[in-house]
């Protein structure tokens, strides 16, 4: 039987159209079924056995074998905690931001997650330590394990390069800028944007010339970004007409008998078209330009800002976050209060502009303002996840509200699921240090929750997760 595959192909052809395949069968098979009551069925069993045993599928071309998934700079979460992590991550399906915060908390303790438990998506907020995985997912290649230089620039993958650039920018801002000036223009638009984003950190007047060239970049995204950074340095970024038009939407005045405090309030809008136009202009005009048009310094405008239009205030917060200098951002953040206008959630865009030390100083104000929800506090606690002592949080109204929600119902009936309680406990699990997490978990169990309640899983994981550097 020199060519079994072609013999079988002929037999299969006969069977496809119907009828006996005996004629196409090899002589030994015909002899084997001779005298059988049902020779066609016997032939079918022989062919089936031959296909199962004597033939094996082969690939058309050799399979593409990918490079190995790189190991990361931090150890993988210990096996003992992986099940708890999986339960927590499954519970955060509804919100990508929660997942990123959870990864930041775990990285803060000195671990990365197991790739089979969770493979992070490139959301832009994933901890830097995952950059090799993000690059591997995109291109299945790894970056060289050396310092980023002009010579090896092209060999780096985008996420890894952004991380390496950010490190250089933190220690030597000019060196990072010089690397960008020499090499960034050769990158594709998305990778170029990712690379130049490092300029936001450590921004100084030394960057102005390079930012000027970026305002003429072929990517409009980079043009806008460079313009925003220039505006933080005090440069006007828009036409005088737009600034004048926007300033007409506001009125300045004085308030108070002795101190005569300056106030800026929106003028009354008559039509929706005006409202839409004002929204567009708020996205185009910088804080510096608007304040100058109103005859104020940028910091004065932030202090004087008033009004009761939530959408307009949101536009203003974003204007300050994108185009305001560090002092303006800090001043606006300090105005955080319990009002809907300046709640921690509404002011969250400012958090990324503030240094960790400034955010830490502001945290008591933010926590005091977080009346019923701790969710908005997360953005302000970046870099401090898993480090806050219980006493910082247990005195807040939001914490007391969670305790009330956790208490059993007075009539003994089962309480329905409470998403605010679940989200609040998740946030506490992210924020607290180990001792705090254990103390808070105990508090809620005493308040009536089952120790096995899934909402307490992150607190339990937090309490049990020893920092990787402390492990024997």
């Amino acid at each position: 039987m020199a060519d079994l595959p072609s013999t079988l192909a002929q037999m299969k052809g006969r069977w496809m159209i119907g009828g006996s395949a005996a004629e196409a069968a090899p002589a030994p098979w015909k002899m084997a079924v001779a005298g059988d009551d049902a020779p066609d069925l016997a032939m079918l069993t022989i062919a089936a056995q031959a296909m199962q045993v004597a033939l094996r599928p082969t690939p058309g071309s050799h399979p593409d074998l990918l490079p190995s998934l790189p190991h990361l700079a931090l150890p993988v979460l210990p096996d003992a905690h992986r099940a708890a992590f999986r339960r927590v991550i499954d519970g955060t399906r509804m919100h990508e931001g929660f997942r990123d915060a959870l990864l930041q908390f775990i990285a803060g303790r000195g671990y990365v997650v197991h790739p089979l438990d969770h493979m992070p998506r490139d959301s832009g907020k994933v901890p830097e330590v995952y950059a090799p995985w993000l690059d591997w997912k995109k291109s299945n290649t790894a970056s060289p394990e050396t310092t980023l230089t002009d010579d090896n620039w092209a060999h780096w993958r985008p996420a890894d390069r952004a991380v390496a650039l950010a490190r250089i920018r933190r220690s030597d801002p000019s060196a990072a800028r010089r690397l960008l000036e020499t090499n960034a223009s050769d990158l594709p638009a998305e990778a170029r944007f990712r690379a130049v984003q490092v300029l936001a950190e450590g921004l100084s007047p030394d960057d102005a010339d390079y930012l000027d060239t970026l305002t003429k970049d072929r990517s409009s995204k980079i043009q806008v970004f460079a313009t925003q950074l220039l505006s933080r340095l005090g440069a006007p970024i828009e036409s005088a007409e737009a600034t004048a038009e926007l300033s007409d939407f506001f009125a300045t005045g004085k308030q108070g008998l002795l101190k005569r405090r300056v106030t800026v309030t929106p003028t009354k809008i008559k039509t929706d078209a005006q409202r839409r136009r004002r929204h567009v202009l708020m996205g185009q005009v910088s804080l510096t330009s608007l304040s100058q048009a109103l005859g104020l310094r940028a910091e004065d405008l932030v202090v004087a800002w008033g009004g009761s239009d939530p959408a307009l205030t949101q536009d203003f917060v974003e204007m300050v976050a994108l185009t305001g200098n560090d002092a303006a951002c800090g001043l606006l953040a300090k105005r955080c209060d319990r009002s809907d206008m300046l709640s921690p959630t509404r002011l969250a865009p400012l958090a990324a502009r503030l240094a960790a030390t400034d955010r830490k100083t502001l945290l008591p104000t933010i926590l005091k303002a977080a009346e019923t929800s701790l969710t908005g506090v997360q953005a302000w606690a970046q870099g401090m996840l898993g480090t806050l002592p219980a006493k910082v949080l247990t005195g807040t109204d939001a914490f007391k509200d969670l305790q009330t929600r956790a208490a059993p119902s007075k009539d003994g009936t089962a309480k329905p699921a409470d998403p605010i309680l679940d989200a609040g406990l998740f946030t506490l699990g992210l924020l607290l240090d180990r001792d705090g997490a254990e103390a808070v978990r105990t508090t809620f169990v005493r308040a009536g929750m089952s120790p096995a309640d899934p909402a307490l899983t992150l607190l339990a994981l937090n309490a049990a997760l020893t920092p990787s550097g402390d492990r024997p």
Partner: protein
Amino acid sequence: MSLTAEKITALAPDQASLKAANKLTSASKWPVLAKGETLVWGECQGSGANPYRTVFDREDHGYKCTCPSRKFPCKHALALMWMYVEDPGPFADGAVPDWVTDWLSRRRPSQGDAAPQTTAGKSLAAARRADPETPPDPEAEARKEAAAAKRAAATQASLDGAIGDVDAWMQDQLRTGFGTFLAEAPERCRTIAARLVDGKAQALASRLDELPATLLTLKGEARLDALIQELGQIVLIGRAWRSNPTDPELHRLVATAETRESVLQNPEAPRHRAVWDVVGEQVSTRRDGLVSQATWLMTVGDSAPRFAQLLDFFPASLGKQSSPFIVGEQFEAEVAYYPARVPIRAILAERKSTDRRQGWPTPDAPPLTAYISALEQAPWLSSVPVLLPKGRLGPSGDTLWWVAQDGDLCLPVSNDPPDHVAGMTLDAAVGLWSGREMTLLSAQTGWGRVTFDG
């Protein structure tokens, strides 16, 4: 609220449940009994191949059992509560296992208190009273044996007719052509499967009933190849059964499997005591409304690997059942195999936990040798578990392939794992090879255990 005997009585759906629970209140029936902060859990070897895992909450009396009972709470949950209330001593303090936490993450609050609770007509004391023994009646026994012999003869005749039916049907398919068959597979298979069920050939019926769904997952020529292999094996099983109708393996392939008790009592059922590693689980819903749950075990240590499949069925209407084991779990057990030329299907005869984890065995022969050898003895096997040596996964065309590290062997893989698994070296892998494709169950990698969805 603490659990009391009265509360258990109130929770029980009826007196019969309490009576059944009473028979399970012996610690010997529970290889695992443990407790945590508020939870109590245990594992009870019931009538299935896999043990039932039962847990309850001491505080709110919520409970869960992996058994397929439609009574809530089932006898296992009642027995566990009962044993705990009477004497918590045998319940060791332990860390809450994964299967318990899985339940916790899905449970509704206060499940136990939501059940109708009354003690009317129910009593633990009455459940404990032994049933009065009836004296043996020789005449009744003889009548029973005669009736059983008559039933066996009728079943034999019925099965013979069913095999004849399937042969005739198969010849029809060959005559009209597989091209037409592939276009009408669901209707044609459904018709013959119904006739086989009438003829008491349930196993063959189920195999033919599942065939269209299997074919639909395949493309192009692979579909025709799978059809020829499956029909060829069915013909082979029928012929083998006719030549030896009392063979237990062939009876199982044509009609039904033996009960757990008969396997345990059968001196010819091979047994093997070893430390076993749970290497995979396959759960599928069949067209007949049953869910098939297969747990795959492999021996660990230095000797050549042996495999065992714990197979259970339960009605799909019961909803998703928790897995009886966690993949990667190891335990010491004696398994009793259903008698077969290549013993694979088994039940757990005895089990105990093991403290020391052992590594997987090292394959000492080419990976498909075990497959060829198994088919020489039992040519009707549709797939055989194999231990693969070091290799990687990689795509070629639209198929994923397992590639041996030495590059000598490439096998098509039916699973669709996450992309990043292709970035891991599989130091060893366990899969089911069908002659056409490999269904991977799990693998050892530098990142730990990888479990594949079947």
